[in-house]
C-alpha cells in the first residue's frame, strides 16, 4: 500500500525534494498531521526549555535527575515532531519516527519513577536501593527502543518490529503508571507540588503511549491508514497534555 504521494515537485537538495507530500493521498489527513506536528514541536520545545530552566535552578537541591528526564522528553518529542513535519514538506521518509515517541514514553516512565523516588518518605522505598536491577531494566528498555528505531530504519515496517514497538510502549507505560499509582496513593505526597506535577505527567504518558501502541492494530490486520489517522489524534492529545504539564513546570520555576 502506498502511504505517501508527491503532490507536486519541489527543489531538490542533496537528493531530498522539498514540497508538499500528502500523507496517504489524503489532504485532510496531511493538513491535520501538519498542524499536530507543528503544535507538538512548539509545545515540546517549550516543555524542554522549562525543564532545563528548572534543572538549572535546582542544581543544588538534588532534583537534577527528574528535570534531566523531562528535558530529554522535551528534546526527543521535539525531534519526533520535526521529523513528522519534514515528512510532509519533503521527500524524507522516516518510518522509524514512532520509535522516537517510544523513547519519549520510556523517558516519561522513568521521569514518573524519579518523581516517585523523589517524593518524601518514598526515598527509602523498596527498589530504590536495588540499583543493579534498575540499571539492567533500564538497559533492556533502551535496547527495545534501539531495536525498534534502527530495525524499522533498516528493515522497514515489519510486523515483528511494529509488535515490539506496541508492546514496548505498553510495558513502558505500565512501568511508569505503577510508580505513578503508588505515589498518588501515598498520603505523604498528596497535595504537594510534586504530586501535582505527576498528575500532569500521567496524561502525557498515556496519550504518548497510544501513538506507538496503536501500531499493534496494524499487526492485527487493521488498515494502516486508519491507524495513521488515530496516531495523529493521539499526537494532538499528547501535545495538549504536554501543554498543561508545561504550566506546572513554569509554576515550579516561578517559585525558585
Amino acid at each position, binding site marked *: 500500500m502506498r502511504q505517501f504521494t508527491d503532490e507536486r515537485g519541489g527543489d531538490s537538495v542533496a537528493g531530498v525534494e522539498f514540497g508538499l507530500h500528502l500523507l496517504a493521498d489524503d489532504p485532510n489527513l496531511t493538513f491535520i498531521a501538519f498542524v499536530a506536528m507543528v503544535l507538538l514541536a512548539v509545545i515540546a520545545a517549550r516543555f524542554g526549555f522549562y525543564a532545563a530552566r528548572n534543572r538549572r*535552578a535546582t542544581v543544588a537541591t538534588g532534583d537534577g535527575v527528574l528535570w534531566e528526564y523531562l528535558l530529554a522528553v522535551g528534546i526527543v518529542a521535539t525531534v519526533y515532531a520535526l521529523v513528522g513535519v519534514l515528512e510532509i514538506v519533503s521527500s524524507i521518509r522516516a518510518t522509524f519516527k514512532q520509535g522516537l515517541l517510544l523513547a519519549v514514553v520510556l523517558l516519561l516512565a522513568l521521569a514518573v519513577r524519579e518523581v516517585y523516588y523523589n517524593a518524601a518518605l518514598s526515598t527509602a522505598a523498596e527498589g530504590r536501593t536495588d540499583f543493579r536491577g534498575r540499571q539492567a531494566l533500564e538497559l533492556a528498555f533502551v535496547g527495545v527502543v534501539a531495536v525498534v528505531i534502527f530495525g524499522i530504519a533498516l528493515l522497514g515496517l515489519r510486523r515483528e518490529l511494529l509488535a515490539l514497538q506496541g508492546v514496548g510502549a505498553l510495558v513502558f507505560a505500565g512501568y511508569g503508571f505503577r510508580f505513578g499509582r503508588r505515589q498518588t496513593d501515598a498520603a505523604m505526597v498528596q497535595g504537594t507540588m510534586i504530586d501535582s506535577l505527576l498528575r500532569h505527567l500521567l496524561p502525557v504518558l498515556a496519550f504518548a503511549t497510544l501513538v506507538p501502541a496503536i501500531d499493534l492494530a496494524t499487526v492485527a490486520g487493521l488498515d494502516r491508514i486508519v491507524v495513521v489517522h488515530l496516531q495523529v489524534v493521539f499526537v494532538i492529545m499528547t501535545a495538549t497534555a504536554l501543554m498543561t504539564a508545561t504550566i506546572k513546570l513554569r509554576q515550579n520555576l516561578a517559585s525558585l
Partner: protein
Amino acid sequence: MVEEQSSDREGLPEQLVETLADPATARSQTPYLLGVLDDGEPDHRLVAGTALCLVARSYPELREAVAERLLDRLDGDAHDEVGHALDYLATRYPETVEEAVETLEEDVGTGARERLSRSGAEGGFLRSESLAPGGRDRPVGRTQVAGEGDVDDPRQVYTADPADPDADVADHGDGEDDASEDAGGQDGDDRDADDRGRDGEDGDERDGDGGTTSGVTTVTLRAVSRRLSEVVDRSKFDELTVLTEGRRDRYGAVFRTAGRLDGEEYAVGLTVYRLPEDHESFVAGFRTTAERWQEAGSHRAVLPVYDWNVHPRPWAAVEHTGESLATRSDPPSEPLWTVIELASGVAHAHQHGLVHGAIDPGNVRYRDAVLDDSRRQPLLSSPGIATLSETGPAGSAPGDTDSADERPRPGGLDPRYAAPEHYDDSYGRIDGSTDVYGLGALLFRLCTDHHPYTGDAGTVRGKVLSEGAPEPRRVNPDLPDSLHRVVRKATATRKLKRYETVTAFERELAQAREALLAEVDDA
C-alpha cells in the same frame, strides 16, 4: 557625612572639638563645657550641650551632677541649649534627672519641672535622631500627654503592667532597645520632612503645657508624641494619643496608642517601620503590602490594619494585641484549631496576593482580654513585611542569637522557624510555599511543645539545610501518624515536596483533626 562634620567644626574652639571627638576621656572638661553653655556663641553652646550629654553618657557617676548643674541654669534667661541638654538627659536617664530635681528646693524644683516640660516641647536634641533616647515599652498608666487629646474615660486608656506581655521574644535580645531611633532615625528628605512637621507643632504644644503627674515621664511622652506628630496628623483617627514610649520590634518601633474615630475608641498598636538601606524600594513595596494587608485584614485570623501611610516614613496602625504565641505562658488548648485558623488566614492573604514570608510564634498575636481562654483567636501579624526587609535569619551569623535560650535576633525571623529558602537562595524564593513551611513549623511547635530546631543560628541553619524536614515523632513519639505526616509534608526542605497550597495543608490538617476528634468521641 564625615565631610559635613568637618566643615561644621570650623571655627569651633579646639577644646570643644576634642571633647566632642572623644567624650570618653573628657571627664575633666565638664566645667569648661558648662562654662561654654553659659557664655559661648550659640553654635558653641549647641556643641557644648551635645558634648555634655556625651560625657554624661560615658561617665554614669557624673550624670546627676551634670543634671543638677543644668537645672541650676534653668532660670528665665537660660539659653535654649541648656534645656535641650537637660531634655536629652531627662529622657535618657529619667530616674537620675528625677533625683536631681528632687534635691532642689521645692519652688526651684517645680520651676525646673515646668522648664523641663517647656524645653521638651521646644524640641531640642530629642529632635536629632542620632541622639534620640532609648525607648522602652514602659506603660505609663493613665498619664496622658498634657494638652493633647481628651480621653475622658479612664477605662479607655491602658493601665501600667510591669510584666508587659507585649514584649516579643525578639525584643529581649537587645539590651538597648531604642525605639525612638526607629521612630525617627532616618536620613535625608525623610528627616527633614519629620522635622518640618514637628516645627509646626511646637507652638501649640508650648501653649498647651499643663497638668502633669510626672514631669520626666511627661517630657518623654511629649518627645515621643512630637516625634510621631506627623504620623498622628496623617492618620484617619480624630485623635491618636500615644500611651507608651515605644519598644523596638523586629520591624521598627511599636507604640501603644489610643485612637478615637467617630466617637469610638480603638486600641491601636502603631508601628513605625525601620528603613533598610534601600529604603525607596522598601517604601514602594510597603505601599503594595499595606494595601493588601488591609484587604486581607478582613479575615478573622489576620491582624486588622486600621490605617497606614508612607509619610513621613512607613507606618501602620493596627489593632493592639497583647501577647504573642512566643510569649504565651500557657500553650494553646486547641493547637490544631489554632494552626487551621492561621492557615485559613494565610490562604486568605494569598488570595489577596500577599505572602507572609515570616510565620513564626512572634508573628502570631493574641488580643489582650478574652472571656473564653480556651479558643483565643490567633491573629497573623505583619504579613508581607518581612519580605520587604533584608533582615532575617539568612544574615545571621553563627552565635548570633542573643542568649543561651536561643532567642532570635530582633529584626529577623526566628531562625528556628525559617524555611530553607530563607537561608539559601538555591532553594527558591520566598513565596506561598514558604508560608506552608512556616505553618508546618508552628504545627511542630504546638504538637510537641518544642521548637523544630535548637541551637544557635548557625547550627539551626546547618540542620535546616542538611537534615531535611524536622521529625516531630522524635520529640513526641505519641504523635498520631496523620499529624506527623502533615508536619513532615509542610516542612519538606524542597518546595517540590511541600504542600502545593496552604489550602491543601489546611484541608489535610482539618481532616486529621476531625479524625482525632472522632477517635476521642468513640473512646
